[in-house]
């Protein structure tokens, strides 16, 4: 591999890593901080992508506006979902939540099929993002991908700030370890959790909306991303935003170079990485920090 | 077993145990000997490193430096379960029980540790007469006999503290490392615990960590005082009581009776 190609591969790795982070961030929030093992996270991602598909014609060129509308809608959805399906599960065994989210996957998948059919759909990127940059004469790089990466970085910073630096973030984390005590301090944990859950759903949906123009929209798209996101969250250390970012980038690099060097066995590479890291550091890379 | 072994070799001997947590040295080169027939109290300010010391003696956490001998045999590298089976029993400062199990099962399970036989698949655990017998006995001793069938989690705080001690006794230890056994117990229960300690020390080596000074001065044969990870004094109770360093660092004026 010559040097320019190597650099482009690094760029690929970073870009894939950042996109993974965007999806995984919502998962860290719901899974790592609230303690809900949310298998339906991939479905929220899918919902976001289909939302982009459905909203695009309504908003035309107003891409940012469309994203905002999508965030509001998905947050509302998350709010209601938490209310109906999760609010009474926190006191129970965590595995009950797993069963619930598993059931939700089935339901979402079928509802999607009823609303949108089973075709593959494309979503076009807004014109101002649809060009390509030439990279050293080797290939061109879609501007949209760079935009997506930028969006991921913004979300990463924002999320890190909220979770680590605000009282809201502290309350959420406190709630994950001892709900009763948080209540005893005068904090309405039910409302708080509903908001966090909504935020997690909105983040997943945002990821889906951002990914849609690049990845297209198709049945089962949520399932594929789900496992890899769990891998990211766990490698990073559950509940750690910065850990998730590092882990996403690591996974991005391992996946990218795995494909280049061990094409035949690249399916295993990410899992080998996870197993090695967890055997080395049983609590993930950043077990304590948030 | 020795009856009065004070002058024989110590049952448990710890040399220069040190434990660091990142930048903090929680315990600095603490040496301590425990003899059968002697109750050795360790007192000290909050965060002085008493629980950490117990954790190192029982093998719960590894010492950064130092050595440990049980019965003259080097036990520094032994993992916790091995130490426990060799006779080092401990209780926890924060109640550490099996809340879902019955009170009896809590004790039976710890008693079973000495008779594990995991391959005895045909034999029912509840039918294991030896462990059930020990469990009933220690519940009687701890004053919990009437609660045997209650789920342990449904007991009050003080009752759980009593169970904590009972579970420790159920392993039939030779060395008892007790981390604030009186905390949370009412006056009456504390009284019973103290007389139990007085009985136990005849054939056990006991290390007692406790903040209740009345109790400590009543039962201790020797007192070690820790502040910020270091031993500032180790002496008989009478000498400790009047030691000015100990008074300013720990006792305050409350115990100058």
């Amino acid at each position, binding site marked *: 591999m010559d040097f320019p190609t190597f650099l482009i591969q690094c760029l690929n790795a970073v870009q894939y890593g950042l996109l993974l982070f965007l999806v995984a961030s919502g998962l860290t929030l719901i899974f790592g901080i609230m303690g809900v093992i949310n298998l339906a996270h991939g479905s929220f991602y899918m919902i976001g992508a289909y939302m982009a598909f459905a909203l695009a014609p309504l908003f035309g060129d107003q891409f940012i506006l469309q994203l905002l509308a999508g965030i509001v809608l998905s947050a509302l959805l998350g709010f209601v979902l938490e209310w109906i399906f999760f609010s009474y599960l926190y006191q129970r065994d965590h595995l009950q939540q797993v069963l619930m989210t598993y059931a939700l996957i089935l339901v979402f998948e079928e509802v999607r099929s009823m609303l949108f059919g089973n075709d593959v759909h494309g979503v076009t990127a807004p014109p101002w993002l649809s060009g390509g940059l030439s990279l050293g004469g080797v290939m061109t790089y879609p501007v949209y991908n760079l935009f997506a990466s930028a969006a991921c970085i913004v979300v990463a910073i924002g999320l890190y700030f909220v979770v680590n630096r605000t*009282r809201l973030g502290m309350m959420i984390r406190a709630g994950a370890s001892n709900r009763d005590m948080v209540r005893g301090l005068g904090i309405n944990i039910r409302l708080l959790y509903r908001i966090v859950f909504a935020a997690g759903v909105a983040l997943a949906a945002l990821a889906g909306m951002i990914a849609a123009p690049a990845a297209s929209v198709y049945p089962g798209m949520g399932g594929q991303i789900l496992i890899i996101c769990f891998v990211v969250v766990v490698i990073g250390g559950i509940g750690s935003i910065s850990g998730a970012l590092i882990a996403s980038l690591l996974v991005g690099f391992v996946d990218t170079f795995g494909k280049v060097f061990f094409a035949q066995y690249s399916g295993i590479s990410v899992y080998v990485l996870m197993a090695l890291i967890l055997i080395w550091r049983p609590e993930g890379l950043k077990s304590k920090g948030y | 077993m020795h009856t009065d072994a004070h002058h024989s070799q110590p049952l448990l001997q710890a040399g220069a145990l040190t434990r660091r947590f990142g930048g903090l040295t929680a315990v600095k080169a603490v040496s301590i000997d425990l003899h059968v027939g002697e109750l050795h109290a360790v007192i000290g300010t*909050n965060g002085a490193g008493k629980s950490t010391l117990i954790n190192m003696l029982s093998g719960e956490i590894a010492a950064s430096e130092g050595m440990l001998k049980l019965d003259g045999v080097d036990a520094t590298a032994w993992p916790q379960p091995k130490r426990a089976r060799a006779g080092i029993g401990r209780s926890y400062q924060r109640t550490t029980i099996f809340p879902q199990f019955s009170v009896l099962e809590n004790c039976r399970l710890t008693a079973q540790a000495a008779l594990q036989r995991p391959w005895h698949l045909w034999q029912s655990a509840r039918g294991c007469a030896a462990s059930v017998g020990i469990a009933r006995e220690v519940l009687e001793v701890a004053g919990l006999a009437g609660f045997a069938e209650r789920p342990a989690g449904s007991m009050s705080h*003080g009752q759980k503290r009593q169970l904590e001690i009972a579970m420790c006794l159920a392993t039939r230890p030779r060395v008892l490392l007790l981390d604030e056994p009186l905390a949370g117990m009412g006056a009456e229960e504390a009284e019973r615990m103290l007389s139990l300690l007085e009985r136990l020390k005849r054939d056990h080596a006991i290390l007692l960590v406790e903040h209740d000074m009345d109790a400590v001065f009543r039962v201790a044969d020797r007192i070690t005082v820790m502040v910020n990870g270091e031993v500032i004094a180790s002496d008989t109770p009478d000498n400790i009581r009047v030691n000015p360093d100990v008074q300013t660092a*720990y006792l*305050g004026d409350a115990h100058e009776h």
Partner: protein
Amino acid sequence: MNTEAAMLDVAGVNTYYGDSHILQGVDLQIPAGRALGLLGRNGMGKTTLIRSLMGYVPMAAGSVRWGGRDVTGWPPEKMARLGIGYVPEGRGIFPNLSVSENLVMSARAGVDGSRAWTYDRVLSLFPRLAERLDNGGAQLSGGEQQMLSIGRALMTNPTLMILDEATEGLAPLIVQEIWRVIGQIRETGISTLIVDRNYRMVLAHTDLAVVLEKGRVVLAGESAALAQDHDALGRYLGV
């Protein structure tokens, strides 16, 4: 006891855990600015009473009034917002938060808008905590956790402090300090409800005392008077 206007007035509390009838008609009043000690042997229902009035455990019967207002059945977060600072038995530290986060997250102005208890004041009360600000809650010693739990409750600037075994595991010097602070708090007009195994200290630092026996109030009155009643103390506390 009934002559003063009660800040907290709990009447006829009956609480069950499953089938067992734990509290059997308990009455309790805490007048504004007064300290009340709740005594009883292990397992008599002290904690259950506190958890009932805080709204953690549903009461089968009984009422809770706050400053004359009926607040029966309110959930814990609303009770806390009335101005109750709660130091639970067993501390309830958030293990995944650092010491300073444990304090900061609970900071709140009192119902009257007062901010008497600030981060700095709590740290100066417990200098040991100031040394361990970045430690995770789970990595504190038992006593440090207890300090944190008290400090956290103070950060909410309560009008009523409920201390359930708040001195457990604290070194004698600190315990003295805590009792001194309780005295101070009392002077600033804050009420306190204290459960502690050291009945002598409780009786010395409270105005009123209530003794529970098997879920019933068997004795209630002035603390000073009870301190002299060796008979009753022997009967109900086993001392």
